[in-house]
């Protein structure tokens, strides 16, 4: 059967939508937020920041330029480098010492007119060349930027263990203003200039850089290669300008990461939900399919069909209810069939009995009369045997009558002790005659609710069958116990047992495996048992004996139990 509008499918679709739509909505909001943040960061503030940075850098360069220009014009400076030892001016030397005693300066250098380095006045921060000659110091090849009369040479990037630097070199004039006798230069710490770039505007996202003719440098004076988007600030000198490297990935790093995580989370959760509901729907459909096929089987008469029960959920409960329903249905049907069968048989047997009983009585009377007059002992014996057979026929007929029209039960409390006593009294002689040990076990103080005559007849029937089916030296046990709120009367023998294929038929009317008897004993016993609201079961296996168990209700005078079938009978 095809389900046109599966509620399971609809439930899956709705669940997926309900779980993914909010995530998508939050993701869109995040997108918008990051977009706005980026726009804000890249907006006017950057332009203002770059202008301010350019001003700081320009002011620093201008201060150094003014310093070197002032020194260059100081009397005695121009001849200081070329003065012979002992002829140098102490005053100039002191001034140079003070001027170079700054953490921003490595020292003050003097160059000859041809550019040859003449003299180095080390400052407090002096290190490496040219103050120590173990490594070369050269200005050749470094870019030059002109700022009025002053030249900016460099910057020289940091190499190995040496710091980066730049020179601000100013010409020294002789007596003639146009005559250049040499140069004086401030040996400036490059990092002191790049530190003017200031701290990162947004750490990790905006990297301030100084662009120079020798390359780009970061805040701590290290050569840097820009990878991100570059925003250039105003030029402070030809080829010199502050930059802001925007590492858009860095700006968006956290946002992008969160977005990615969000997206992955949404996809994973949606996939999980789809998978989960797909599996769930498959399971549901399979199990509902089983229910449907079970219902179909039952409707087609397969009352033995059982639906597999898994777990303890609603579907398992429905399956259980289905199975219980089919069991009950089968039981009712079987009982109805059996009752119908018994009713037909009973009516037939009653009719037969009625037709046979009266002639049989007449025959018996005639045979008795003949036997009284007969003097020949042989004939008298034959007549006696005839009378015995007539009695046996009469009992069969009586059984038939009882089977066809059972007496309605008159239930009352029956003492197990009394029942056992009576049965023992009857059975024990027969058992002894057959060499079978008969015993009563269980709780003799129990009482049960049944018609006493019916019950005695049932138990006698069962016990007699057991004794007859048990070979010599075997045992037959009559036991009474309480079982699930009812009284169980059990007759157990050590006989040959009943084959499985016959077990379902032994209580059918007229079925017997014995050479004597008409096969009504068990049928009548089952019939009487059911009339008294009881149940009879037979367990047997060839070679292991047979156990017949009769379950009957406990005494309950307030609500005497009477089986409906009994009333119907």
């Amino acid at each position, binding site marked *: 059967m095809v389900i046109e509008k599966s509620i399971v499918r609809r439930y899956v679709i709705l669940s997926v939508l309900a779980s993914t739509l909010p995530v998508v909505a939050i993701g869109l909001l995040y997108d918008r937020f990051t977009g706005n943040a980026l726009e804000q960061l890249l907006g006017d503030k950057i332009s203002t920041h770059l202008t301010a940075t350019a001003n700081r850098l320009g002011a620093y360069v201008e201060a150094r330029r003014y*310093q070197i*220009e002032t020194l260059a014009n100081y009397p005695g400076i121009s001849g200081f480098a070329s003065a012979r030892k002992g002829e140098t001016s102490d005053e100039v030397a*002191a001034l140079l010492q003070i001027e170079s005693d700054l953490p921003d300066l490595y020292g003050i250098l003097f160059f000859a007119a041809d550019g040859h380095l003449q003299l180095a006045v080390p400052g407090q921060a*002096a290190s490496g060349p040219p103050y120590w*000659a173990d490594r*070369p110091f050269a200005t050749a090849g470094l870019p030059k930027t002109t700022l009025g009369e002053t030249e900016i040479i460099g910057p020289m990037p940091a190499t190995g263990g040496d710091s980066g630097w730049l020179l601000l070199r100013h010409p020294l004039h002789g007596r003639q203003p146009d005559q250049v006798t040499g140069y004086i230069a401030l040996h400036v710490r490059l990092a002191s200039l790049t530190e003017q770039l200031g701290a990162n505007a947004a750490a990790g996202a905006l990297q301030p850089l100084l662009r120079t003719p020798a390359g780009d440098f970061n805040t701590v004076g290290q050569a840097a290669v820009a990878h991100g988007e570059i925003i250039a600030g105003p030029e402070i000198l030809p080829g010199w300008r502050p930059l802001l490297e925007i590492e858009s990935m860095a700006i968006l790093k956290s946002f992008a990461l969160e977005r990615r995580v969000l997206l992955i989370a949404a996809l994973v959760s949606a996939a999980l939900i789809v998978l989960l509901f797909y599996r769930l729907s498959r399971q549901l459909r399979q199990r509902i399919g089983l229910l449907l096929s079970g219902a179909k089987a039952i409707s087609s008469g397969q009352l033995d069909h059982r639906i597999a029960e898994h777990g303890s959920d609603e579907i398992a409960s429905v399956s259980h209810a289905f199975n219980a329903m089919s069991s009950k249905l089968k039981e009712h049907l079987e009982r109805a069939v059996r009752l119908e069968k018994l009713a037909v048989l009973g009516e037939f047997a009653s009719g037969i009995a009625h037709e046979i009983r009266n002639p049989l009585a007449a025959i018996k009377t005639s045979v008795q009369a003949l036997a009284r007059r007969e003097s020949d002992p042989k004939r008298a014996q034959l007549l006696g045997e005839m009378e015995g057979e007539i009695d046996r026929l009469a009992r069969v007929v009586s059984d038939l009558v009882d089977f066809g029209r059972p007496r309605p039960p008159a239930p009352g409390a029956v003492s197990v002790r009394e029942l056992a006593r009576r049965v023992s009294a009857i059975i024990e002689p027969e058992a002894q005659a057959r060499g079978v040990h008969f015993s009563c076990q269980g709780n003799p103080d129990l009482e049960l609710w049944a018609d006493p005559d019916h019950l005695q007849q049932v138990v006698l029937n069962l016990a007699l069958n057991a004794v007859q089916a048990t070979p010599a030296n075997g045992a037959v046990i009559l036991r009474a116990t309480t079982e699930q709120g009812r009284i169980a009367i059990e007759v157990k023998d050590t006989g040959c047992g009943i084959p499985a294929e016959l077990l379902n038929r032994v209580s059918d009317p007229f079925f017997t495996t014995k050479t004597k008897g008409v096969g009504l004993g068990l049928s009548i016993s089952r019939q009487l048992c059911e009339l008294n609201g009881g149940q009879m079961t037979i367990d047997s296996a060839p070679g292991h004996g047979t156990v017949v168990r009769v379950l009957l209700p406990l005494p309950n005078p307030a609500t005497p139990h009477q089986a409906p079938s009994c009333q119907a009978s």
Partner: protein
Amino acid sequence: MLFPLFFSKRLTDLLLATGRRAAWRVRLAISLAAVAWSIPGQARIEIGASPRTADATVGCMFPLAGRAAIYGRDSIAGMKLALADLATELPPGTAPKLRILVEDDRSKASVATRIAENFIARDKVRFLCGVVSSGVAQAVSRVSRARQVIMIGTDHASSRLTIEDFHRHYFRVSNDTYTSMAAGARYLADLQKTSGWRRLAFIGPDYDYGHIAWRDLEDAMASRGVRYEMAGHLWPRLYEPDYTAYIAELKAAKPDVIVTALWGGDFIAFLKQALSSGLLDKARLANFDTGGNFDVLASLGEQAPPGLILSARHHNNWPETARNRKFVDDFHRLEGRFPTYAAEGAYAGIRAIGQAMALAGTRAGNEQLIRTLEGLHMSLPEDPEGYVSHIDAETHQIVQAQAIGEVVPNSAFAPAKVMLGRWVVYRAEELQPPLDLVRSRRARARGDTASTAPPPIPIQ
């Protein structure tokens, strides 16, 4: 030194505003005023014998204000202890009467040069001593060489002073960068075997001390065959107030080990920023020359950051000898606090002068004193049991052992809550520069080699 800095930056702006013609005159006047201001009339501290009774006058220069002031104060206390010990430990009547003058060099070469010149010219000092910054010490050493006055360096460490810039009148009585970096290289080599570190970064102050510390470490690592990948060199200025940009660079470089030559207040400031920034979560920080100083350990409070590798020129809790305990206890009795390594350096300086004069005679000339100092043996607080420090005749550098440790909880030296422990000690003999290395460095500095290095530039 704030004064010249103030004039150099602020005044330049003023000069820009007042016009160029008169500018140089204004600047000159202020510069000369600065020189004049920094010399006479400046507060000076005198300890020891009076001018009339003194056998010799010692002129010392230390910073007495600013970040490095603690070094000056501790040095003065150390010198007082040295005078007392000389009087009690030398045979009666042989201890020279020393008059010690101390002036604030403001960590400025120009100021220290002028002070030294005045010590020599006006106070007729027979010895110059002290100086914390190597940059300042080089300037004073040049005065010492020019004026042929013996200088006893107590607290600066650039190895150039005893190798490239060596002269007969200069002696140093505290471990230099060669010694500490030789010990550091050995420590790092051993550490590499256990931790497998590969990437090394160096951050040092941007003046000669920082750069020569790196060169010494680089050479020592090469001589030990330590293989590593250089993650970067960073050179913040001396007395840098904010290390944010440098720490960002270090974090970006992702080193396994960071070696620093920052010292004093600079190292404390750097360490605090490094700890708060998480820099040391993934890298070990080593400071082999000055990092184990008492003021650094006291600044850590109760923190004992794992991974810190420190040493210094003197430790209050190593070696555990009677002499070291006496020195630390005497200092604590005198000052009410525990000493930084500067105290022991200054103590050693005065001990060297006193013992040399006792041996050579109070009337001995410079040459005789120099010969006495060359090879002088003296027992000092930082000598481990069984070892006596001595001055190497070739370099005039004191030869001492070095102990490197890690930070461990220890409240025996209040206010410090942590001290160094888990010591690794390197013998003095293994930390001395080989003679051929000394000579080759001096030859390179003179331009004697066939390298492309230019000849030395005349320094005024």
